[in-house]
C-alpha cells in the first residue's frame, strides 16, 4: 500500500539528495545539457529524447531482473520474456487489429515466462542460469517457428502530448511528448522503488533475497513470495516487450529483442539492484547510443555501422568491468531455497 507519507519521504529524500556530494554529477549533467542546448538546440533535444527512447526498455527490463534477484532468483531469461511478449503483442495486435489486445497478450505471455522460470527454479530447484537459458532458447524456438511474414499493425501507440507540460522548452519534448507505455513504465519504475524500500512487501522481498531461512522463520512463505514476484516481474517484462513492438518499433522479426535482456542485467548491476539507479544507468546507455547516432546523422564522425551497433554490448562489458566487485547483489540470489525440515 502506498501512503502519502511514502511520497513525502521520497520528496524529502530527493531534496536531501540534491544537497549531497553525489549531486555534483547531477549539476554537471545539467550544465552540460544547457551548454549543448545553447550551441545546437535541435541536436541536443534529439539526443536527449532518444536517450529516453533507447534507455526506457533497458530500464524496464532491468526492473524484471531487480524484482527477481531481490527475491533470490537470478533471471537470465529476460531476453526470452522480451522476445515472447513482443511476439504475442505484435501478432495478437495485428490479427485483432487492436493494440489493447496486443498489450494485454504481451503482458500475459510475459507473466507466463515468469511462471515457467519460477516453476523451474523455485519448485524444481534447477540451476537458475540454465533455467533462464531454457526460457531463452524455448522463446527463440517458439517465436521463430510460429513467425509469419506479411502482418502489420493497425497503428502504433500514438504519442500523448501532455497539455502545458509539453510546451516547456527541452523538457517538454524529452519527457512530455511520449507514448502511453513510456509514461506508464516510468511511473511503474518509481512505484517499484517506493514499494521496494517503503512497504512491507519490499522489506520481505529483500529479506528473502538476503537470508531466506531467516525470512521463513519470521513467518514469510518464501516459496509463495518468490512465485508472486517472479510472475509479476515477468508481466513487467511483457510490458517492456509491448513497448518495443507496439510503441517503439511497430513490427516484429526473428531475434527481435537483440540482446536487450542481457544488457538489462548489466544495467541492474550498474544500478546496484536499485530501481532508480538502474533507470539512471539505462538512460546513460540510451544516451551513448543516441549520441553516436546523432554524430553519424550530423556527419561529424564517420563511424562504420557495425561499430555503432556494437556500442551497447561494449558498454555493457566496460561498465561491468568497472562496477562489478564494488557492488554486491542480494546474497541468496542464484541459490535454490530448501526449507529446513523440523
Amino acid at each position, binding site marked *: 500500500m502506498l501512503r502519502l507519507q511514502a511520497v513525502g519521504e521520497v520528496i524529502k529524500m530527493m531534496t536531501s539528495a540534491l544537497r549531497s556530494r553525489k549531486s555534483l554529477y547531477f549539476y554537471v549533467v545539467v550544465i552540460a545539457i544547457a551548454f549543448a542546448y545553447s550551441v545546437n538546440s535541435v541536436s541536443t533535444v534529439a539526443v536527449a529524447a532518444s536517450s529516453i527512447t533507447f534507455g526506457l526498455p533497458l530500464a524496464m527490463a532491468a526492473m524484471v531482473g531487480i524484482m527477481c534477484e531481490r527475491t533470490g532468483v*537470478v533471471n537470465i531469461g529476460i531476453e526470452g520474456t522480451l522476445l515472447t511478449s513482443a511476439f504475442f503483442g505484435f501478432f495478437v495486435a495485428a490479427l485483432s487489429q487492436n493494440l489493447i489486445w496486443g498489450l494485454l497478450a504481451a503482458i500475459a505471455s510475459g507473466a507466463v515466462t515468469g511462471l515457467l522460470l519460477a516453476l523451474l527454479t523455485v519448485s524444481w530447484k534447477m*540451476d537458475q542460469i*540454465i533455467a533462464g537459458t531454457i526460457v531463452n532458447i524455448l522463446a527463440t524456438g517458439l517465436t521463430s*517457428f510460429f513467425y509469419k511474414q506479411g502482418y502489420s499493425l493497425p497503428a502504433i501507440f500514438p504519442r500523448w502530448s501532455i497539455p502545458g507540460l509539453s510546451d516547456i522548452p527541452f523538457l517538454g519534448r524529452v519527457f512530455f511528448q511520449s507514448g502511453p507505455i513510456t509514461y506508464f513504465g516510468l511511473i511503474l519504475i518509481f512505484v517499484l522503488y517506493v514499494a521496494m524500500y517503503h512497504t512491507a512487501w519490499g522489506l520481505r522481498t529483500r529479506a528473502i533475497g538476503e537470508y531466506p531461512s531467516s525470512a521463513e522463520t519470521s513467518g514469510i512463505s518464501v516459496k509463495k513470495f518468490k512465485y508472486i514476484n517472479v510472475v509479476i516481474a515477468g508481466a513487467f517484462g511483457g510490458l517492456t516487450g509491448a513497448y518495443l513492438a507496439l510503441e517503439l518499433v511497430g513490427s516484429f522479426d526473428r531475434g527481435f529483442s537483440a540482446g536487450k535482456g542481457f*544488457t538489462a542485467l548489466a544495467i541492474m548491476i550498474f544500478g546496484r539492484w536499485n530501481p532508480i539507479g538502474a533507470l539512471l544507468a539505462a538512460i546513460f546507455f540510451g544516451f551513448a547510443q543516441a549520441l553516436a547516432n546523432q554524430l553519424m546523422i550530423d556527419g561529424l564522425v564517420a563511424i562504420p555501422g*557495425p561499430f555503432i551497433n556494437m556500442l551497447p554490448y561494449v558498454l555493457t*562489458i566496460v561498465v561491468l568491468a568497472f562496477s562489478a566487485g564494488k557492488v554486491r547483489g542480494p546474497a541468496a540470489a542464484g*541459490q535454490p531455497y530448501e526449507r529446513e525440515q523440523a
Partner: protein
Amino acid sequence: MKLVRAWITPLIALVIAFGIGAILMITQGSDPLRAYESLFTTAFSTQEGLAKTFGKATPLAISGLAVVIGLRAGLFNIGAQGQLISGALAAAWAGYAITGLPMIAHVPLCLIIGAIFGSLVGYIAGALKAYRGIHEVITTIMLNSIVLQFAEYLSNGPLKEEGSIIAKTPPIADSAKIGSIAGLPIGFLLSGLLAVGVWWIFKKTTTGFRFETVGKNKNAAWYAGIAVKRNTVFAMVACGALAGFGGAVETLGVVGKFEPAFNQGLGFDGITIALLARANPLAVIPGAILFGGMRGAGPTMQFTAGVSPEIIDLILAIVLFFVTAPIISRIFKLKSDSNAQVTSGWGSN
C-alpha cells in the same frame, strides 16, 4: 546399468520432443510421418546425405566440446558462437592471404590461427570472470554480438573480396582446403579425435582434475592449493580455442571463405548438444551427428513435406528443456540426477 541411466533421459527427451513436433506439424496442416521420414532418410540413408550430415555435425561437435569443457570447469560458456566466428574469420584470412605454402603446412597453420583467435575471445570472458567477478554468461553473450559485428565490419571492409556485392572474404587458397577420406569429412574425423582428447584430459590428467575441482567447489579447490583464478581463465581459453578451431574447420572444409551469414547458430546448438550429452565429451559425437543430420536435411523436409525448417529449432529447444529440467526423472521415477549447480551467482563472489 549406469550406462543405461545416462542414456535413458536424453532418449525420452528426444521422443517427447519429436512427439510435440509432430503435433505442431499436424496443427499446421502437414503430415509429420512424411516430414520425419524425409528428414531421416535424407540425413542418414544416402551417401550424399551422410556426407552432408557429417559435414554439419563437425562444427556442432567441436562447439559442443567447447561448452562441455566449460560445464566441467563450472563455467557456462554461451560464447561458443562468438569464439567460433572469430576462429572462422581468422582462418579464412590465413587461408587466402597466405599463399605459396604446401598443404601440409597451410592447413595446420590456418587451424592454429583459428584456435588462437577463438581463444582470445575466450580469454576476455575468462579474465573478466576471474579478476572482475563478472558472470561469464553476460560477457560471452555480449562478446557474441561484438564479434559478429566486428566480423561484419571486417568482411565488408578491410577483408572484403574486391568487386563483391555482399560482405565476404576472398576464397581461401586450394592449399588450405580440407576434403574427405572415404566419404567422411576430415573435419569430422578431427572432431572425433578432439572428443577423445577432451575425454582423456578429464579422465587422466591433472589439468582436467583441476578444472573439475574448481568447477565442483571453488573453496575446496583453493584450499587444496589450486590457483582458482588462473584455472578459470585457462578453462575459458581452452573453450575458446576449441570453438575457434571448430570455426576454422568449418571455413576450410565447408564454406571456403568467410561470410557473416554462415556459421549462425552453430555455437547455440553446441550448448544443447553439451547438455544433452550431460557434459560427457564422448557422448557429444552422437548428439552432434543427430543434430547435424536434422540441420542438414531441414531444407529437404521443407521441400517434400511443407514444414518450415524452424520446427527443428523448436524441437531442439524442447529437447533441451526435457534434458535439463528434472521432469523426466520425476515422471518415470528414475533415480534423479542431482541438481548440481554448475554456475555461480554474480556480483557477490
